[in-house]
């Protein structure tokens, strides 16, 4: 009998690269449902969407926190969970949910947001889902009070578990969340640096297929420059990894109108294409109001894919110093310790990395971002960041509660004002607890 070489399952990164090579931007939802039947329907609808897609299983927030008693109680009470509780669903249920869903062109990524992801990673590997995301900094500082040193150790163990799973055939994939810190008002150079540092941490602990995130901020030109810096620095600092950039549609206060939300989504798709990113994680028009339905997710994927078709790769981005700032931040951290985990802990302890408006006890809290007159996100205070020779924060600028509020709402109000008048489309909500009802998304403000 002739031995047939078994082609190993392509990794998440290989699939994205192959789909990009066909000329498509890969678009992906943030979808997660507690009910296995709805989760399955969501994945199949994502796969069938008129767009080049990969799938998502987002876990619920009790699973994120490791509160499995609360998960099981909610499942017993038939209470609503805000995602799929993969750890507490029995393996047969998850296998049935996934049956026939995964293909060589349609991998599924598990999204969770956990500062201690060990049990989640162990479970998703057992379920045959070796693509996930997160990071020791990005899932610790904004969403927990866990000491950073502890999160670094948990993420090291999680990376090692993922890396070991390579022996069983599938190449694991890990995406950094560091390019999305706080959702808004973190200057792009720090987002780029944190995304790279988390990617390098993954590499140091055995991950070879990595994606680097960057969340759309307030100014398209500035975002293009930031993504160009991320790509250039990934070639310098992660030369041997398989990498792609993943753009997140704006994560701050979202437009309330249908027209505003659709245009912001389209803008993020154009950013992805212009900057040569491989993948886009979309938001829906329901985002400002509630958890979106399957139909709203599919509509967002198709709208993003349509917008991407009309955009062209830009040859060169503007240069205002994001590359230099990000490089200085990364190099400073790398110089602190050969072990990147320890270097990250030291960097935050000394304020050499310092995330604006982040209240975690291990964040120094001496930096601030602000929006300049052109809508670019700039440094107002740099604290001890090692970029003093690269930026000139404005003198005498005072942040007030009113100016913080208007900065937080800058994107929302801008897109609502310019595009909110577009005719709202009635949306049938099929799975609210109160049953189907018609809601005019555009009229809600």
């Amino acid at each position, binding site marked *: 009998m002739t031995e047939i070489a078994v082609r190993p399952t392509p990794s998440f990164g290989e699939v994205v690269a192959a789909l990009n090579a066909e000329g498509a931007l890969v678009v992906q939802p943030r979808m997660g449902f507690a009910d296995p039947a709805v989760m399955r329907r969501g994945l199949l609808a994502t796969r069938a969407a008129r767009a080049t897609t990969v799938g998502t299983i987002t876990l619920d927030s009790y699973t994120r926190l490791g509160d499995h008693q609360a998960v099981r109680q909610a499942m017993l009470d038939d209470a609503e969970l805000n995602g799929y509780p993969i750890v507490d669903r029995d393996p047969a249920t998850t296998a049935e949910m996934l049956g026939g869903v995964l293909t060589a062109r349609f991998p599924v990524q598990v999204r969770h947001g956990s500062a201690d992801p060990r049990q989640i990673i162990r479970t998703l590997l057992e379920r045959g889902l070796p693509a996930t995301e997160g990071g020791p900094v990005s899932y610790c500082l904004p969403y*927990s009070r866990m000491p950073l040193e502890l999160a670094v150790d948990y993420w090291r163990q999680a990376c090692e578990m993922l890396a070991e799973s390579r022996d069983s055939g599938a190449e694991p994939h890990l995406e950094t969340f560091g390019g999305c810190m706080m959702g808004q008002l973190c200057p792009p150079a720090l987002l780029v640096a944190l995304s790279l540092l988390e990617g390098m941490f993954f590499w140091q602990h055995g991950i070879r297929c990595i994606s680097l995130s960057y969340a759309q901020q307030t100014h398209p030109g500035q975002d293009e420059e930031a993504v160009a810096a991320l790509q250039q620095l990934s070639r310098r600092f992660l030369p041997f990894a398989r990498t792609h950039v993943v753009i997140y549609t704006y994560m701050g206060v979202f437009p309330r109108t249908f027209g505003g939300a659709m245009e912001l989504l389209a803008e993020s798709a154009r950013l992805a294409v212009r900057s040569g990113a491989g993948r886009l994680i979309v938001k829906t028009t329901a985002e400002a109001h509630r958890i979106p339905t399957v139909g709203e997710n599919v509509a967002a994927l198709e709208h993003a894919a349509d917008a991407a078709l009309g955009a062209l790769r830009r040859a060169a981005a503007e240069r205002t110093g994001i590359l230099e700032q990000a490089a200085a931040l990364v190099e400073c951290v790398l110089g602190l310790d050969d072990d990147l985990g320890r270097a990250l802990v030291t960097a935050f302890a000394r304020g050499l990395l310092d995330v604006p408006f982040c*209240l975690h*006890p291990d964040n120094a809290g001496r930096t601030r971002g602000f929006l300049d007159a052109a809508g670019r996100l700039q440094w107002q205070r740099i604290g001890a960041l090692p970029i003093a020779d690269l930026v000139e924060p404005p003198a005498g600028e005072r942040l*007030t*509660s009113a100016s913080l509020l208007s900065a937080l709402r800058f994107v929302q109000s801008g897109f609502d004002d310019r595009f909110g008048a577009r005719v709202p489309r009635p949306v049938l909500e099929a799975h609210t607890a109160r049953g189907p009802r018609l809601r005019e998304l555009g009229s809600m403000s």
Partner: protein
Amino acid sequence: MTLETVGAGAADCRREVLLTGLSSDAHTWNLAYLELLLEELGCRVTNLGACVPDAEIIEACRTRRPDLVVISSLNGHGRQDGLRLISALRADPALAELPVVIGGKLDVAGGGPHTAAGLLAAGFDAVFEDGAGLTRFSSFVGALAPRPAAPLAVA
């Protein structure tokens, strides 16, 4: 994100305010905003941040002796988490008279008089429901007795 602007103009009072989120709530922009607002109202603010366990809040009350504790909650668990915290806090005789207020989206049903009454009965000094604006909150802070000046305080 549901924040409201208020007009300036409150008098400088230099009260010590302890600002915090509750154990199950990861929202932080509300806390960043309130820190600035309280500073504009003349307060010195200690911001404990998000996801703070009850024991840590109570310990900070004991050691810092604030003039006011402000609790902000947006995740819909504010009522149950707040009731649990206030009963533990009021159980300490040293904290029985400490002014403690709570505000935000306090339950998943959108609050209402029942929620506020329950929190007041349990020991909160005031409840500020989301959507009602911050004028009443600012007035409450402004009406607190000024902190006696320390002998060697630097203005």
